[in-house]
């Protein structure tokens, strides 16, 4: 080790725009996740296993599964997102990168939004892609599989955004996982209701554009409000550490 803290480098001061900073946060989270592919796979396996429990635990009858299929898939997706939320900020909190994120000169809620979107790409999106297979296994009929995927596509980002608030609030607490679920499950109920309700309506041949639009409205609301709450919660949790 010859050179130690010797060079004093000065670079041209080119300050970074908010969009660049958001992209950097997003890309960094994806990169880290892809270096640990098992962690990505686990929520998906959980999703599949929970869905399997229902035919085994309740009934494998086609008539039951047709009826309950969309609900089963939605509940399983919701639980598997819930399970992955604990990691959203915890590693960053433990290694100190969260402190550096909060101290970046960009608005924190936008950086939080970038992190929530990365979380969705890593957990929600794979669930959406896997859903058709499981949809067939629970005997959802033609059209309703497509509608199910559509509701998951609109609904899972809402789960990530709301979940981010809970993850930020419970950061650094003992038994944060269970507490996080307690806080977040009641807030997930509207998404669950409309997610399953829309698929049920589709299977009965009713028009679903209205419900889908309403879910879209949930998404817009979550996109605009949840990052502010998450950012506030992160500051509080960091203040306390």
């Amino acid at each position, binding site marked *: 080790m*010859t050179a130690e*803290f010797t060079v*004093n480098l000065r670079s041209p001061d080119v300050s970074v725009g908010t969009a660049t900073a958001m992209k950097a946060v997003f890309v960094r989270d994806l990169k880290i996740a892809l270096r640990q592919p098992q962690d990505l796979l686990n929520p998906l396996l959980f999703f599949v296993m929970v869905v399997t429990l229902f035919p085994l635990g309740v009934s494998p009858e086609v008539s039951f599964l047709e009826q309950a299929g969309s609900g089963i898939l939605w509940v399983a997706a919701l639980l598997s997102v819930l399970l992955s939320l604990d990691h959203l900020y915890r590693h960053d909190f433990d290694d100190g990168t969260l402190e550096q*994120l909060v*101290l*970046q000169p960009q608005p924190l809620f936008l950086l939080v939004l970038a992190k929530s979107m990365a979380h969705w790409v890593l957990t929600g999106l794979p669930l959406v892609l896997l859903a058709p297979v499981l949809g067939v296994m629970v005997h959802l009929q033609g059209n309703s599989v497509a509608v199910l995927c559509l509701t998951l596509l609109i609904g899972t980002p809402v789960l990530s955004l709301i979940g981010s608030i809970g993850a930020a609030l419970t950061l650094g607490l003992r038994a944060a996982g269970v507490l996080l679920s307690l806080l977040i499950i009641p807030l997930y109920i509207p998404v669950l209701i409309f997610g399953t309700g829309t698929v049920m309506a589709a299977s009965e041949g009713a028009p679903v554009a209205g419900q889908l639009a309403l879910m879209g409205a949930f998404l817009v609301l979550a996109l605009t409000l949840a990052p502010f709450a998450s950012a506030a919660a992160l500051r509080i949790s960091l203040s306390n550490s």
Partner: protein
Amino acid sequence: MSEPLLQAVNLECERDDRVLFRDLSFSILPGTLIRVEGPNGSGKTTLLRILAGLNDSYSGDLLWRGQRRDGYREDFLRNMLYLGHRPGIKPLLTPIENLRALMAGRRSVPDKVLWQALEGTGLGGFQAVPCHSLSAGQQRRVALARLLIADEPLWILDEVFTAIDIHGVAALEKLLIERVENGGAIVVTTHHDLRLPAMQRVTLGGGDGYDR
């Protein structure tokens, strides 16, 4: 005399029913190093986190360049560099990726400069190895590489000499001295015996913390 960068006015912090400090006032001027001293548990880290804007459960005022800091948060953050207990290094990323990610939110720095900075902290040859395979001291050096490319006038460094070997400590000391001579302002906590010409002290933990 030059204008202070950051001023603490009557700071008071109470934590878990214990007063850590109260009526604490001092100014951080360019070209000075302030060492925050006190026994374990006297609130050194808490004070640094308050100064850095990470902890906002305090009463009193913080003035940034003469104005209340709350209104100038972005300007403050652009001009302040904080290194905490936790180095802010992702174990799964390589040093160069970590440095890139840390700088991404602040300034766009050419990759060449980042490689040189890592070399400058004695990490030459380790730039592309995942950080989890580095030692604790090496991981801290990744974080310290930021000091070589930092242009923020205010540095807040918590236990900056932790896990650094003797050579590293001497070199780092030299870097801090040069920095102060060039007009930088530095606030540090350290158990290392630091002796610098322009050093001021802020001592915490005077009372038992319980009196009112």
